[in-house]
């Protein structure tokens, strides 16, 4: 084995040390299995990484918690009077230069993600510095986590690589997750201490698919956003013009002329593009796009503190 091959082995070994804790995956399996069994929700199959991160995330105490709504994971996703989904918690301190980049929901989990103001549109999803605050009815597995105090409440902290997560039980379980931001432990605890309940906060989905809200929306500004839902098909809605380069086959979708490219279904509807991808037959992707109910998205908060 030569030097390059040995370096490859060493590098991959180092990468293996970043293996995430299995707790969130197991929790997600349990939640999704329960939903499957009860046939209440569609299964979110993929790509809610930013929201899934919040399973690790932290929770914050508040003096103004609303009464509990029960243990059902769906409780947190009950639309408010305006059609939004309550986000319930807001940090009152963030590292300098961080702005809100994404909001999302998944099962009973609701989350907000802050990223550096110059971060790309997918920041907080695939990687890079981020601060996430979320809430969920389900407490993560905190076995082995360090016990901490968050505004006088017992919480748990875990630092893993460049990510620190705080979880504590307030009205719901509140999660704070800080990634790649200076001293992540100190930052996560400071963010956690600043979290307060905020009854006015809501996630306004840009669309619904089979009655379920888009899993998340994020972007680089109020006019440059992407919303996504992950069902058996991944459906994405955005004012951004997609990069298209392959051969196109015309297809009728939503009563308009769309097209199929590399197995994906693409159509423009008004000011937005709708794209459905996934290892599914074209007619199923077309059906998914036809099921999309476009809504008036509130994106005014994107890239604001």
């Amino acid at each position, binding site marked *: 084995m030569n030097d390059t091959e040995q370096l490859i082995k060493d590098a991959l070994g180092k990468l293996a040390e970043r293996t995430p804790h299995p707790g969130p995956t197991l929790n997600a399996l349990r939640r999704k299995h329960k939903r499957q069994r009860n046939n209440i929700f569609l299964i979110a*199959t993929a790509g809610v990484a930013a929201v899934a991160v919040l399973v690790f995330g932290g929770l914050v105490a508040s003096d103004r918690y609303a009464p509990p709504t029960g243990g059902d994971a769906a409780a947190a996703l009950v639309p408010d009077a305006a059609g939004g989904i309550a986000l319930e918690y807001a940090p009152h301190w963030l590292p300098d230069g961080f702005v809100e980049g994404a909001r999302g929901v998944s099962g009973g989990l609701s989350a907000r993600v802050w990223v550096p103001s110059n971060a790309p549109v997918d920041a907080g999803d695939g990687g890079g510095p981020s601060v996430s605050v979320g809430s969920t009815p389900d407490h993560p597995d905190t076995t082995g986590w360090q016990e901490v105090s968050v505004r006088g409440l017992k919480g748990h902290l875990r630092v893993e690589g460049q990510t620190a997560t705080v979880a504590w039980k307030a009205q719901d379980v509140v999660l704070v997750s800080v990634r790649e931001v200076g001293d992540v432990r100190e930052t996560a605890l400071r963010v956690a201490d600043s979290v307060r309940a905020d009854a006015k906060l809501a996630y306004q989905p840009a669309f619904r698919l089979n009655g379920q809200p888009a899993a998340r929306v994020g972007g680089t500004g109020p006019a440059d956003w992407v919303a996504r839902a992950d069902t058996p098909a991944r459906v994405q809605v955005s004012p951004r013009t997609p990069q298209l380069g392959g051969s196109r086959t015309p297809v009728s979708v939503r009563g308009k002329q769309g097209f199929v490219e590399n*197995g994906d279904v693409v159509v423009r509807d008004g000011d937005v593009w709708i794209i459905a991808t996934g290892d599914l037959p074209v007619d199923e992707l077309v059906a998914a796009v036809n099921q999309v109910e476009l809504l008036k998205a509130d994106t005014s908060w994107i890239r604001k503190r």
Partner: protein
Amino acid sequence: MTPSFDDFVADQVTPLLRYATVLTCDPHLAQDVVQEVLLRAQQKWDRIGSVDLPHAYVKRMVTNEYLSWRRRRAAKDVALCMTTLESVTPPVRDTTHHYDEREAMLQRIAKLPRKQRAAVVLRYYENYEDSEIAQMLGCAEGTVRSHISRALATLRMEHTPEPAGVGLRLGEGLS
């Protein structure tokens, strides 16, 4: 005796996450991939649990999921795409020169085409033989050798060792 799905998950979730992390170069994507695969495996457990090596079967599912995931995501996700290691965790600096070399190598591995990367991971992390890699990737052994050869050529070409003595510079300033 067929293991229960719960027992299987309890035993294998961490190894699967580890494998997926190395394969995807992205711990968050690894979670998504493993979660997706386990959900599907759960639905078909009667069949999967009765094969000779369920963990090998599910590992192959993880590989295929990653390959198709990358393909469909790369197609037209105008945003929210999962980028690779470059946009994930920046290096946690330690003071050794070799550490930086590993990080640099990881970034180069993360840029490899997905099948080349999978072949490299299976060869150098899992220590698989060509025949095993071919079975895992569903291709011929010659194709495996081609993937690895091309990957090594890319990684070697981009790997320019620094001059000897660079690693001593910290010490020089202390003397």
